[in-house]
């Protein structure tokens, strides 16, 4: 039968013990289109893509690739059918070179058993050049930035006869400029007739890159639409099954006294130079900038995880000593909610309860003995307040979804009764429902007189939530903006002044 679809999935159902992960899903992909797959965490997007990539066998339904029915489900068959997938967590081997990673499963042979390294590097160089990428094929995968690792994953997929490329949240760790670069590559792929399936939580990307969208909710198919016929509001409504109005809701108020003051901060190791800023009670201050501008490094220096040589950090009127530890800062009322919740925020193999009390052990149990009742009270209170969805507080943190994990991290820091809280990318990789809850909570916090510094790469979030915005570039704060006068374009232009001017000259 002749068909013009690259992929046709009909009535796909996948049952795991106790739950229907996919329930009668239909999905099609045309050549040369970008089909965006949307849904909250746990909606079944990744499961569906794993069926397509041959990692799971469906319990019911049919899968057609270019009109032919697929009956064998394994990654090698999928690859033979031209289906490539880039997972959210990359599969590069850190201690192999870029070229070796690209050709990992079919390195060009020499004399039967050896690898023709010269040819491999030449091919890799050419491939990267064609993609207009400035990556050294000899560099180790672990040495190149995350954005380039992403490109290497794309290059790796391209070495096969690629017809379908699945990208699972490819922009989660990219900066604005890098996202645009990635989109360029995606567009050049679709021009060659490759179909791209794109999973993302960032709604503003959809209109930029997507042709059609399919929305899933709780393992069920909701609908498929052309992007031009829909709006972000409608999409969100369909995703969550209810209307989300006013995502960035703020009760603005007059800021109070200065809660955190940083003056002339220099750090040799983190290359921070002459950073100065202040944060008042009742304020959310956004810290914008490109990845690598030094935002996280500044937060870590303020929190005294990393050292700084010169400069003053004054917290709630008290000057902090350079030799102090995070513990001292926590005791004085500072919290840092880190960017990488799995590595720095949580102990995934410990229960939720132990994670929540981790930063306030000496506060809850001042004599060193665990006071079970006091701990339970604290844990239950924040699980309830933050609406952490879990069967019990003894559940391991690793078993929760991203949004719920982030709420546990939040609970951990609220439990310390901090007055000043630094949020580093508070909503990265979590769904829109959980995002809204976290924003509402941040607003609640500043209403009670706490102060928040929010690092974020999502400009709508920065503009929507902040009262004031600092923009960092090259390890310095280059601009302070009031949020009511700030636009995305302004922030980007300050964050990457040089680049923008060049582009203007070109255009």
């Amino acid at each position, binding site marked *: 039968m002749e068909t013009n679809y690259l992929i046709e999935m009909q009535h796909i159902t996948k049952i795991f013990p106790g739950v229907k992960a996919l329930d009668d899903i239909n999905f099609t992909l045309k050549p040369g289109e970008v089909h965006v797959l949307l849904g909250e965490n746990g909606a079944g997007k990744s499961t569906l893509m794993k069926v397509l990539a041959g990692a799971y066998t469906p319990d019911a339904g049919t899968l057609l690739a270019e009109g032919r029915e697929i009956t064998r489900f394994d990654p090698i068959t999928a690859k033979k059918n031209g289906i490539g997938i880039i997972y959210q967590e990359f599969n590069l081997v850190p201690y192999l070179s870029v070229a070796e990673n690209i050709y990992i499963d079919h390195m060009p042979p020499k004399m039967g058993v050896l690898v023709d390294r010269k040819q491999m590097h030449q091919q890799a160089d050419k491939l990267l050049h064609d993609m207009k990428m400035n990556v050294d094929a000899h560099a180790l995968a672990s040495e190149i930035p995350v954005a380039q690792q992403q490109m290497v994953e794309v290059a790796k997929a391209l070495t096969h006869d690629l017809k379908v490329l699945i990208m699972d949240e490819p922009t989660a760790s990219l900066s604005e400029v890098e996202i645009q670069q990635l989109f360029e590559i995606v567009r050049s792929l679709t021009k060659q007739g490759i179909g791209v399936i794109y999973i993302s939580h960032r709604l503003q990307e959809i209109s930029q890159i997507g042709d059609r969208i399919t929305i899933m909710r709780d393992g069920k198919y909701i609908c498929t639409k052309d992007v031009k016929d829909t709006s972000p509001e409608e999409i969100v409504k369909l995703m969550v099954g209810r209307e989300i109005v006013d995502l960035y809701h703020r009760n603005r108020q007059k800021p109070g006294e200065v809660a955190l003051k940083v003056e002339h901060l220099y750090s040799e190791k983190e290359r921070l130079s002459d950073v100065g800023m202040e944060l008042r009670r009742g304020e959310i201050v956004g810290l914008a900038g490109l990845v690598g501008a030094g935002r996280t490094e500044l937060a870590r220096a303020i*929190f005294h995880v990393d050292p700084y040589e010169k400069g003053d950090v004054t917290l709630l009127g008290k000057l902090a000593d350079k030799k102090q530890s*995070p513990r001292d800062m926590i005791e004085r009322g500072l919290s840092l909610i880190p960017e990488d919740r799995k590595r720095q925020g949580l102990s995934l193999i410990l229960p939720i309860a132990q994670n929540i009390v981790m930063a306030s052990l000496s506060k809850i149990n001042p004599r060193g003995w665990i006071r079970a009742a006091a701990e339970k009270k604290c844990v239950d209170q924040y699980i309830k307040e933050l609406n952490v969805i*879990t069967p019990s507080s003894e559940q391991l943190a690793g078993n929760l979804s991203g949004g719920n994990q982030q709420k546990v991290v939040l609970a951990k820091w609220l439990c310390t009764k901090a007055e000043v809280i630094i949020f580093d990318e508070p909503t990265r990789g979590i769904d829109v429902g959980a995002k809204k809850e976290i924003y509402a909570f941040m607003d609640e916090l500043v209403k009670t007189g706490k102060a928040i510094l929010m690092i974020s790469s999502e400009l709508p979030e920065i503009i929507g939530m902040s009262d004031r915005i600092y923009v960092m570039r090259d390890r310095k704060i280059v601009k302070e903006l009031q949020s009511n006068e700030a636009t995305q374009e302004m922030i980007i232009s300050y964050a990457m002044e040089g680049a923008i001017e060049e582009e203007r000259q070109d255009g």
Partner: protein
Amino acid sequence: MSGSRLKNRKRLSTSAVSSVSRLAVLLIIIIMGCIIDSSFLSMRNISNNLANASILIVLGIGQTIAIITNGPDLSSGSVMTICGVIAAILMKSYDVNFVLAILLAVLVGCFLGALNGYMIAYVGLPSFISTYGLQWAVFGFAYVILKGYVLYDFDPTFRFIGNGSLFGFLQMTTVVMVVFVIFGTLLLKKTNFGRQCYAVGSNREAANMSGIDPQKVIMKAFILSGMLSGVTGILYVARMNTVQSDIGSAYLLPVLATVYMGGTSASGGEGGIWGTVVGALVMTMVTNCLNLLAVPSEWRDAIIGVLIIVTVLLDITVKKRMAKRKRVTV
């Protein structure tokens, strides 16, 4: 929300199920023991098994704390030896009062533990290297100070700790063991320090960001391991009434097997004292069964080896199953 469907489900926690699987292994061995010999569950045999397991358990408590926080303490057998040797020499050659001798020997254990802790936490050596290196040095030192002699026949008051008994059936070694089991359990489960051990072992960076000083915690954990190795050395000398420069070498691998069989994770942050107690009882009772059956010693090792692998495999399988079911529903 996606997680709402599990709200009304209540399940046993993973750790509860895995401890049930370990108890099942213990139960099977007890049943097998009863089939082999009807006197297996006699008061006398139980009392002996408990006392024999005690050395492994006390040594295992320190090991458990070290593994949960950072990694195995491979020097524990040697520290046990040197502490036994020092206490023995102090009592035999210098006529030191046995209480003082015990205190000094345990202090040496603490010091050696601190040395490990310093190398691991502050210098940054992997615990495997630091403790393995120390093991060789300490065994060598024990040999040097004892010059290959065997010391025996100690003060009866001292020996009471090892082979005395209360009410006829409760051996003193068991009493000492129970005291330390309670001590270890309380420490790990009921104190901030215990929480910090799990926090550092499961995610050192997250612990550091939470205001816990990982270096201090690791230091303390290894001091404890050294101290408990010292206590075990004393217990051994008091029980056996003899000491040589290699008494601990036979304990290192069994104690590691005991701790891992007890469900303590080799990658840290997971496990506990109760598992170690069950692990030690399994080890001891299997040996007892094999003795009753008069199995030749060369076969014994093979059987124990298989048992270790099977027990840990069972534990891992159960945990994996549970994790799989959970991951899908959440």
